[in-house]
């Protein structure tokens, strides 16, 4: 049993030009490992949406992916404003994105729902004024 492959990226808040580059990197690594393409696609969606959230809302943060032989575990942490009503944030179409973000085509309110839909295990914790943490797992063979 080999050591897991750990990828970690620091995402800058409000840096729209490179937003998505880290999740792209993760996707290319998965391809190089020969991981099944549907897993790659799901991880790509989760990490992309999470990365965009870090840029738009979280003031930046950390995006980590840990790849083992049977799963990919994704950890997203920020020290941003936090989410007051998580249940509301999880509804499709609800967004607190700024005008600037909406002008760029973001803020459709689908980010968190998309992440949850593509995860086999989805955990979200948040505290207003402290930040938000996401923990998502994608298994190679769906259980």
């Amino acid at each position: 049993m080999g050591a897991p492959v750990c990828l970690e990226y620091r995402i800058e808040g409000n840096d729209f030009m490179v937003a998505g580059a880290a999740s792209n990197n993760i996707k290319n690594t998965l391809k190089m490992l020969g991981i099944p393409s549907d897993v790659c696609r799901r991880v790509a969606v989760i990490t992309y949406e999470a990365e965009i959230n870090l840029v738009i809302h979280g003031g930046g943060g950390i995006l980590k992916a840990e790849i083992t032989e049977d799963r990919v575990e994704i950890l997203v942490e920020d020290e941003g404003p936090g989410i007051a009503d998580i249940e509301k944030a999880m509804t499709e179409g609800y967004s607190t994105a700024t005008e600037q973000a909406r002008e760029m085509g973001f803020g459709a309110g689908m980010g968190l729902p998309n992440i949850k839909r593509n995860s086999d295990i989805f955990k979200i914790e948040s505290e207003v004024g402290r930040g938000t943490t996401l923990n998502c797992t994608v298994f190679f063979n769906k259980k």
Partner: protein
Amino acid sequence: MLHSVRISREACQGCVNCIKVCPVEAIRVVDGEISIISELCIDCGECLRSCHRQALGIEEDDWNKIKESPRITLIPDPVFFSQFSHYMNPSALEDVMSSFGYDMLIDEMEEAFDLSAYACAQMISHASKSSLPFISCYCPSVLRLIQSRFPELLSRVVHVCSPLELGADLWRMRTDSSNPVTLLSPCPSKITMIKEPQGRERSPIDNAVTVRRVARSIMASNAAPSPDAQLKERSNRWLQWARRGGEVRHLQAFSDRKLTVLAVSGLRNTLDVLQELELGRLRSVDFIECRICDTGCVGGIGTADSRFLANLRIGNIKTDWNVTESDIRRVEGLYAMDFWATTKEYLPRPQLPLSDNIADAMVKLQQMKEVYSCLPHIDCGSCGRPSCQAMAEEIVRGHGSVTDCIFKLREGIATLANKIVVLSESQPQTLKRRSGSN
């Protein structure tokens, strides 16, 4: 896989110029000469442009042999009409070509390009906002680049046959002729397009020669159009596809609303726009025209004249952008019967993982990172690979060794040399007493 770039063994010195410019890192130096990895090559011709020793050329069919057939049917790329300073009216060139016995399928080209523009405009109007922008498939190297590097963008590439091939399809359908058809191509990419089609089983075009080959022989002949020639008045919309912006202009002519379009040319611009698209930007755009060659197809390496002059000439051709009722009726009929549609999916190019087994691939990935960390990271190309990253990958896949890197080799020699110095300085006990003041 078939490609249209030819390497001259005698002229190639194994230098690293082409290796560094290839956008898909398809070239390596093996045994003192370059070798193009067939599975990676996209036929863009950047290697040809960068070669200082005329070691690379375009693989085209034998024009002399084609000229021997009883009937010579040609599909001229729009670029062909931009190559001459003395045939300003496209119909004049048509007349000259006829006098040589070359039958150019220009009516079919006009119709096929109209159909292609109409089909794309229709697809845009029926598309949901979230599925836009669409990407043009006209430049075969852009399609191959996307299949290779941006496979997630394949669903955005319009599934429309090349209008050059559609023209041949129209001609075959109406004349029922099985006579060979030859394409005059401005680049190696369109030559590969007909020999290894993407999106369809077979091409209706049999042969391809470069625009340069035929244009030069016409120029050399100094032929003039006959004074009493009936010069046809045509819309000439299709000729604008020879330069950047022509395709989107044509699409706009068949579109009810004002489209938001990008027209991009050149390798750097193509890579940048596709990367931006991949990162989820450009959402307000409807359609992207993309060409690998600077200035558009007039900048192809199979052309005979300056792309700057060719661009000007196309701009000076009288073009009728007013699409008439009969124009629309004509394309509507063909559109309804799906005449324009591709019959096969655009498939991504398979990327070889580091191993068939994920656990083994993970070990190899770690090894690759370790190998990479001890390389100099200057991407000099001396090892015959385009970058230190590519070298690390090849070593781990078993296609090379660390000493292929000239700096690692020198480092190895320095280490050995130091060992020799240390050994040479150590003296046996018996010699120490005799050396005097030691």
